[in-house]
Every structure is written in structure tokens, then in C-alpha cells.
């Protein structure tokens, strides 16, 4: 097969990522742990540096020049994120520490109105961050959690979902792209069905926003969350998108500076959106750098990123499919690698994922081993842990070749002991 975009994308932009150009254990680094966190381009690194060298100052407070500049840059980052996911208003974007905090915000603020017997529908493949907050909410309110299972292809089972939803359902919270299975859930259909029953919809988009175009108005979700660090931005910054009227109806989550309008000793009134949900000094540099990451991704084009990663997906799955000891999880890619995320969770016969990861590390190849924060999914699949290679647009077919060769060596190393 030919990777037509390889010369025009990965090769073109790899020099933007200084960290990729190093040796690990004497071998060129092959970074295939992008679903855990992405690497950061120079544009993002320089943005952080420029902020601290040139205009570090608190936002929304001072009248001095640096504070005004910091505030402008911080709010400009919000505009960038709003445009990136096609939010109808900049007020619909709340900066949070990460996606987990965004979900907790909704669970504590909106969720506190739930009552005993109200139902929340999740899927069995949720990341712990889209599971534990709802478990805690269910414990507080008496709400009941229900779980959508998987199809035979290990994707979101829309028919099972239809059988679970009822007028008791108050919320459907589901992952857009599974960090383990790599399947892409039909979020638009899910949202439409949920709304027919008067339920709200929250989408965990951590694994989709960095890899494909996202349009919250087209999905018609009520909330959508993502983490900056998985989309070329620093750690410590993420965002909550929420429909304006819904965010307006919600009580504050955390109290403190920044989120107030008028404060008296015994009560306070709150700032308008989005600041109502941004108590305390925010992660200013990180938010501005998230804006830079959005600029960077937008300049490449999310359509181009998705198309290139699909080509890598096709190649990765084709190569893995040729190793008899490998069992993959999640749906097979469709034609041209489309229809699933550019990652593969797998087991390798007798070689335990942790051992595999250690051995691959000696070849300079970074993959994840363990339960990937989806322990219930692993239990559902009847496995304790998997290895996972997850790609990004800066990975190349040559890197997949190095990974596959090291994988074969590791299997041979373990297998040869008793042959």
C-alpha cells in the first residue's frame, strides 16, 4: 500500500516536535503512547515561554498593561477552542484542569438535582473518569447507573442503548472514541435518541478531539469534555463545552475569586458565563498554550489529520494481523483504515503486556501496558490487561515497522525459552 500523505504530513511536521528526535535506551524513540498523552510542538512550547518571559500576569484583575495582555491572550484561547469545536458562543467554553474535572463539574453542579430512581446511562467501555463521578453521584442521590454493552464487533451497541433508555433516563454520558477499543460511537444518533426521552447528553471527547473534526452543534450534545494534554497542549488544562442555557441553569461548582460578581460577608452573586465556573486563578499559561495547540492543529487541518491517521491505522492493523500470537480488541478498520481510531489494544500470547512494554522500551518503543483506566471494560472482555499502541499524525509507517519488528522479537524471546 502507499501512504500518500506521509511525505506531506508526518515528514513535514516531525521537526516541530523536539522530543521525538532523541534516543531511548540507545535506539531512536518511537512514541506510540499518544492516547495517554500527546507530544507538544514548538509553537506550544514557545507560547509557554513567551508568556512567562514577556507578559506573565494575573487575568481579569489588573488594569496594568501586562494583565490586560494576559487577559486578552487567555480569552483569545477560549475563542480558539470555541471555533475549533464549532460552539455557538464563546461563553459555552469553560476552562478546567482536565476532562475529569469537567465531568466532575457537571456531576456536582447539574447532577445534584437528580433524585432516587433517576437513571444515568453509560457504556461498559467508559474511562474511569467518566464512570467514578457518576458512581459518586448515584451514591449521593440514589440515581441508578445503567450500562450499554458492546456489539459483536466490540462497538457501542445502539440497539442495546435503545432498550435501556426510558423516560426515567436523565443523562446519557458516553465516550466518543474508546481509548482501549478505538471504536467511534454514533454520538449524533445517541444524542437524538436521548433528547427524545428528555435526557441530557455528555460526550467524553478526549480521544476524538485530537484526531478528527468535532462539531458540537452537529452532534447536538449538551456537554462535551476534552483534555488539552492529549491534543498537543500542556497538562493542567482541559475544557468543558456546555449549551449556554444549560450552563446558565447550573449552580457554581467551586467557589472563590474570579467567579463572583458582588461579594458580601454572608452571600455573593456570581459572574456570568463562563467565569462562573472558573474559580481562582486559572492555568493561564496552559490555557494560552491550548489556544496555540488549536492553532497548530487547525493549520494542519483536522480532516488531513484524520485521513493520514486512517492510513496509519490500516497499516498498523495489517501488520498486527500477520502475527499469529497477537489478539487485537475493538473493531477492524474499514476500507482505507477508516471507521476507528489510530490505536490498537492487544495481547501477545504468553507475553504479559507489562513484560512486552519493558522489552519494547529496550527497542526505544513507548507503548502503554495495563488496563488503561478502563478496568470494567477489561473485565467485560475477560482479560486483566492489554498492551496498547496509539498513534498520532507525527508517527510514520517506518515507526510502525520498528514497533512490529520489536514486537516479533519479544514474542520470539519469550517463546524460544521452552521451544
Amino acid at each position, binding site marked *: 500500500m502507499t501512504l500518500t500523505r506521509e511525505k506531506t504530513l508526518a515528514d513535514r511536521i516531525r521537526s516541530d516536535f523536539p522530543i521525538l528526535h532523541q534516543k531511548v535506551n540507545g535506539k531512536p524513540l518511537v512514541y506510540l503512547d499518544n492516547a495517554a498523552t500527546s507530544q507538544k510542538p514548538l509553537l506550544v512550547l514557545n507560547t509557554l515561554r513567551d508568556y512567562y518571559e514577556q507578559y506573565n500576569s494575573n487575568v481579569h484583575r489588573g488594569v496594568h498593561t501586562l494583565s490586560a495582555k494576559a487577559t486578552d491572550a487567555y480569552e483569545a484561547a477560549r475563542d480558539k477552542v470555541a471555533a475549533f469545536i464549532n460552539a455557538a458562543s464563546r461563553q459555552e467554553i469553560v476552562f478546567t484542569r482536565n476532562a475529569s474535572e469537567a465531568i466532575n463539574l457537571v456531576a456536582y453542579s447539574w447532577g445534584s438535582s437528580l433524585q432516587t430512581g433517576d437513571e444515568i446511562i453509560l457504556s461498559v467501555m467508559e474511562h474511569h473518569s467518566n464512570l467514578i463521578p457518576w458512581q459518586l453521584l448515584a451514591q449521593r442521590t440514589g440515581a441508578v447507573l445503567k450500562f450499554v454493552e458492546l456489539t459483536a464487533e466490540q462497538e457501542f451497541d445502539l440497539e442495546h442503548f435503545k432498550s435501556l433508555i426510558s423516560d426515567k433516563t436523565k443523562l446519557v454520558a458516553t465516550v466518543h472514541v474508546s481509548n482501549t477499543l478505538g471504536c467511534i460511537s454514533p454520538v449524533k444518533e445517541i444524542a437524538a435518541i436521548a433528547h427524545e426521552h428528555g435526557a441530557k447528553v455528555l460526550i467524553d471527547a478526549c480521544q476524538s478531539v485530537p484526531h478528527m473534526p468535532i462539531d458540537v452543534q452537529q452532534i447536538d450534545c449538551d456537554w462535551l469534555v476534552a483534555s488539552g494534554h492529549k491534543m498537543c497542549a500542556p497538562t493542567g488544562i482541559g475544557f468543558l463545552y456546555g449549551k449556554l442555557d444549560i450552563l446558565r441553569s447550573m449552580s457554581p461548582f467551586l467557589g472563590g475569586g474570579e467567579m463572583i460578581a458582588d461579594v458580601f460577608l454572608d452571600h455573593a452573586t456570581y459572574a456570568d458565563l463562563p467565569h462562573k465556573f472558573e474559580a481562582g486563578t486559572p492555568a493561564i499559561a496552559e490555557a494560552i498554550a491550548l489556544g496555540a495547540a488549536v492553532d497548530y492543529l487547525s493549520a494542519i487541518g483536522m480532516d488531513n489529520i484524520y485521513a493520514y491517521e486512517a492510513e496509519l491505522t490500516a497499516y498498523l492493523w495489517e501488520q498486527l494481523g500477520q502475527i499469529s500470537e497477537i489478539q487485537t480488541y475493538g473493531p477492524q478498520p474499514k476500507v482505507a483504515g477508516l471507521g476507528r481510531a489510530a490505536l490498537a489494544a492487544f495481547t501477545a500470547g504468553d507475553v*504479559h503486556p*507489562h513484560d512486552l512494554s*519493558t522489552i519494547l522500551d529496550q527497542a526505544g518503543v513507548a507503548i502503554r501496558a495495563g*488496563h488503561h483506566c478502563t478496568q470494567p471494560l477489561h473485565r467485560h472482555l475477560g482479560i486483566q490487561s492489554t498492551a496498547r499502541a496509539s498513534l498520532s499524525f507525527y508517527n510514520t509507517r517506518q515507526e510502525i515497522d520498528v514497533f512490529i519488528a520489536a514486537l516479533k522479537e519479544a514474542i520470539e524471546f519469550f517463546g524460544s*525459552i521452552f521451544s
Partner: protein
Amino acid sequence: MTTAIMALSNVRDLYQQVILEHYKKPRHKGKTNPVHRQQRGHNPSCGDTIELTLKLNDAGDTIEDVKFEGEGCAIAMASADLMADVLRGKQVTEALSMVQRFQNMMKGEDEFPKELRKLNVMQGVSQFPVRIKCANLTWHTLKAALESTHDLANTGFVSNEDT
């Protein structure tokens, strides 16, 4: 096998033949009969689990048998099997000092004397800091089992990552 891809000498230091043999053909899997001590342990971040059962003598001060069940990597499982190998006939106080010595060995600060030298095969793990908790899991669980005051009844997990 080809050696073009990885630094195999490091891998061989870690995964010595003895370790792989204990992983593939453990001698002490199962449950003791009777069970005088029972303890489950886990590494929450990676999902490895182990369940140790111990048979003690009538006085309760000497280990007569150790068995384990669980799921985990080669390092965790081989460590458990090696530990069970050497614990038979050891006094409880002696076993507890072996726990300390093993944990020190993982820091590269100690090793076992001649009569227990088979445990020294795990020394290579100290060069792989992220894997030390794999090797320690079984010893950490043993300590909890020996320090528990009741006979059975330990239904909770002891975590290897709290300390």
C-alpha cells in the same frame, strides 16, 4: 534470534532463564491445605493481583507451606513462585526479615546469603525501577499475611502502592 532491534543484554539481565521458567511452570500455584493465613494483594495502577495462602505449624511460628494464585507479569509471578520455594520451614520472624532484605535488594542495597541465593536472580529488576513494584508485590502481600492477627478472614486487598 535477531538482535538488530533491541538491547538484548539488558532484557536478558532482567528476564533470566530461571525467572522465565518460574513464570511458565510455577511450582507453588494453588491453595495450601489447610489455610492458616490468607491475603490478597494488588498493584492498582497495573492491575496485577495475587492471593497468598500459608500453612503454619501448630505453634503458628513456622511456615510449612506457601501457595499463590493471581494474574500478573513474568516478574510478579516468578517472584511469587521463588518466594514460595524458599519460605518452607522458615520461621515467621525470619520470613519478615527476608521481606525487608528483598525490598532492600530491589533498591540495589542488599542481596541474600548463599543458602537463599536463588532469590538473587531477581536482582536485575533493580535496574528497571518501574518494575520493582512487580517483584515486590508478593513480598508485600506476605508481610501483610504474617502480620495479620486473625487466622483467615482477610478479605481486603493490600496495595503495593500505598507505601
